[in-house]
């Protein structure tokens, strides 16, 4: 009887590029796809696709580890030689070896009292990973010891997380408090002291959060689905703290920034979703619809761009049937699709 359906709404994602110190993009060999599964069904999974052999392994995590991933995998990140999978309802983080897929540690995200923290999104910096959780915290985990080092309390239901110039920014969505008007802030945490320094007001129900090379932050604000608080795309200048609205992007959902270009899933009610490409440096919209060959996708669950080839991956879902992963080339033409690849496909890690 809880408003579990609304948990799926007002959420956004951050797709973190590989941060292993060597940022030179390489040609992709495999795709690792996280499928969220349906809440309460224990059916979150990982699919692995070999690009040269064109071979798909469904349920890769189960095959390697002889046990399921759990319930609702929300985020995935490769950092160094390890892959971190954040499983929300099972309240765990699986740390996998990036080559073999073997889980070297299952970190239980629980409080001292045994209550589930319900982790959501993850970002990495300086040998640590930082995880936002629905118990209103950001948790720091050391990547060598894989131990939880501590948590800092932020706003309500933090979602997106990005790290710029020794500060961690998280969007406080307030998604679990949709009845009381959500939350509308971004919390700023200092990396060294790991203390929340301030909150900036950004808009009702903020979600995805990404950064460009200049250190500007972009936020997809979902609003509360009424005319009083519509969705907007906003920008925070981290040097002077100025918050502005980027015009022309009415219903931003998840997005990524690659090469200072923001690829944004934009969905107007009743129409198929589209991908808007926005030039972050020159501050203008390059195209309202990146897909150039007429391919229509109703609901885009997530978006990933390969920095090496410029290929764009769109995870498609209808929330009921297994979804598809579509690959478009840098000109917006469909290259190939993996159909029925998993339930609610979402984050792609390109290896």
């Amino acid at each position: 009887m809880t408003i579990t359906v609304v948990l799926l709404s007002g959420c956004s994602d951050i797709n973190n590029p590989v941060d292993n110190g060597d940022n030179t993009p390489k040609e992709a060999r495999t795709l690792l796809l996280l499928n969220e599964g349906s809440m309460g069904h224990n059916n979150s999974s990982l699919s692995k696709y070999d690009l040269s052999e064109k071979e798909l392994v469904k349920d890769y995590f189960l095959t390697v580890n002889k046990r399921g991933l759990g319930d609702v995998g929300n985020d995935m990140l490769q950092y160094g030689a390890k892959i971190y999978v954040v499983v929300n309802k099972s309240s765990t983080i699986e740390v996998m070896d990036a080559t073999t897929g073997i889980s070297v540690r299952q970190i239980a995200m629980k409080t001292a009292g045994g209550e589930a923290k319900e982790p959501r999104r993850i970002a990495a910096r300086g040998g640590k990973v930082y995880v936002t959780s629905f118990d209103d915290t950001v948790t720091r985990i050391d990547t060598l010891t894989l131990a939880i080092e501590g948590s800092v309390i932020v706003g309500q239901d933090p979602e997106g997380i990005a790290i710029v110039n020794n500060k961690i920014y998280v969007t406080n969505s307030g998604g679990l408090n949709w009845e009381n008007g959500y939350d509308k802030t971004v919390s700023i945490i200092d990396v060294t002291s790991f203390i929340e320094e301030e909150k900036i007001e950004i808009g009702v129900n903020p979600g995805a959060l990404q950064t460009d090379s200049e250190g500007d932050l972009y936020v997809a604000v979902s609003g509360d689905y009424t005319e009083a608080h519509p969705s907007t795309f906003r920008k925070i200048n981290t040097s002077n703290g100025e918050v502005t609205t980027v015009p022309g992007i009415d219903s931003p959902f998840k997005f990524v920034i690659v090469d200072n270009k923001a690829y944004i899933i934009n969905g107007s009610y009743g129409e198929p979703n589209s991908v808007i490409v926005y030039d972050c440096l020159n501050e203008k919209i390059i195209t309202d619809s990146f897909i150039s060959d007429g391919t229509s996708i109703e609901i885009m669950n997530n978006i990933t761009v390969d920095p090496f080839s410029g290929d764009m991956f769109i995870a498609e879902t209808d929330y009921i049937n297994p979804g598809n992963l579509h690959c478009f080339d840098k000109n917006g033409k469909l290259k190939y699709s993996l159909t029925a690849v998993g339930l609610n496909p979402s984050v792609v890690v390109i290896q």
Partner: protein
Amino acid sequence: MKVLRQTVFLLFFVVVAAGNVVIAQTVADTLHLQEVVITERYSDREIRSTAPLQILSKQTIGNLHALQLSDAVKHFSGVTVKDYGGIGGLKTISVRSLGAGHAAVNYNGVALSDLQTGQIDIGRLSLYNVESITLHNGQNDRIFMPARTFASSSSLNITSSAPLFNDDENINGQAGFKGGSFGLFNPSFLANVKVSDRLSASFSGEWMSSHGAYPYLLHYGQADSDSTSLEKRENSDVKNLRLETSFYADQSEKSKGEIHFYHFRSERGLPGATIFYNTENFSKQRLWDRTFFTQGKYEHSFSQKWVVQANAKYNHSNLRYLDPTWLGAEGKVEDIFTQHESYGSLSALYRVFERLSFSVATDLTAATMYSNRKVFATPTRLTSQSVMAAKWVNQQLLATASLLYTRTAESVRNGEPAENRNKFSPYISASFMPLNDLDLRLRVFYKNSFRLPTFNDLYYPIVGVRQLLPEDANQFNAGVTFSSTPGDAVPLLTLSADVYHNRIKNKIVAYPTGNLHQWTMMNFGRVTINGMDVTVDSRLILADEIPFYVGGSYTYQRAMDKTDPGKPTYNHQLPYTPRHSGSARAALEMAWFNLAYTLLWSGERFSNGYNSNEYRMNGYSDHSISLSKSLHTPFGTMNLTAEALNLSGKNYEIVRNYPMPGRSYRMNISINF
């Protein structure tokens, strides 16, 4: 050697009013002026019925190893029970895959209803003092019924035992106790009092509690090589209290009445799905519910030709749900819902002559729901139902037809009300006996029915949609029944086999909308169901005159999603609907004790509308046996039973991630005084 007899107390004019003629295979035991005590085999009604009818008599129920109504109902053909495990787990029924909202559950002739969810949790209903449980597909051949009973696609009817006294008795009853695995503690009592020649009363009470912490094996993957761990089901406790009082009055040969008072309260833990690595945080939800209702019936025969009946009911239910693990600002979810319902019905029967009768009935129901949610709509629905029905009976042909008219008026305290509806629902059925000397009948029926959107469908915050249409169902059924008494060794054999084709239109489903990832209720679905129900019942006499009862059912259901040919689920089997399933029961009555065996089995099913390997769930079989003995004591007849349930010990799942208990044991003692 003991010969069992089923004795049914049938008041004379009820038999006449129904227009049913109890034919040849009955034996009159004693004949009084006003009452007729008739020995009737329920199988007579089953084989004559124009629409499939299955009856579980009190004696059969006793051998089913059933603790709750849901356990007994699983033995019916064509029924899928969605059981979430344990005694307190939610259990809802769907008949012939039409969905839980289409099946009505009637208690002593009046419908139980829940306008909030549209479905009845049958786990809460007790089997204590139940005279019979019947399942009708389509409709009842007895046309002299309230209009509401014509409305559903199928109905499950529970009838309580009316008080029965021997010549010199003024009071009788039963005291019983059941105990067993997982802390089952279930005392019960029943007292029947003969207040006067014309008035009798019945009082019964029952307490059931269980800690429900059964062990189960948790599987982390489907393959045999995947890891498992042994866990204990937490938060699966239940405490139920039931109190009932009934009065039965015969004013005269021509009038009679009855009134029931029913109070039920329950507290239970909801153990939640077995979420990997975090089950304990999903096993903290609690549910409290309290129900009180009173219902009465009065019937009067003006003459041989005219009979009228009035029914009335008032129901008050309160439900409190608590989830203390919610991570939102309040740290918990607490929902309190209250429903009031008032109901009245008037019906009349006109017997033109012995073979032909007509009935009319009109019902009015007013139901309101309250909630502690902010700015809740607080809806009220007024439903008016009127029906005209006709029935023809002769030796070879039994036919009925009816037309139901339903009209609703919706109103709310806050916001917009749902739209009012009005609909006609026709029904026609017939059974025909082609050969005089063979008890073989062919039957057909067609029924059109619908279910109105529930208050949840319409008014649930954000998700509810006011303009929802009712779900439409059309059923076509054709079948054959056969009964014979082949010989001394096999005194009775009955068979029925039906094939059917059902269609649902405007099925109400929750669906995501656009990119806002918001779900809403829509009339989106279309379903086609082709199926077959087969039931067999037989009584044999083994060597040494030992009676042996054996029966079974087989169900085939091909329930296909026909919503959208472009979607991958097109023609896939509906979730949790096995293609093949069945049940079997056997009972042996020997000199020193009785032995009973039951089996419930199901073929594989899918936990998702998309039938792929990852959603495939294995079939299961549940075997149970029991040993029982009757003793004569100075206080009365004492019955002792020892039961062993789910002998295979497997924690099979009916609903994914809700394991059932493994092997368990029960013991019953009761004294009839």
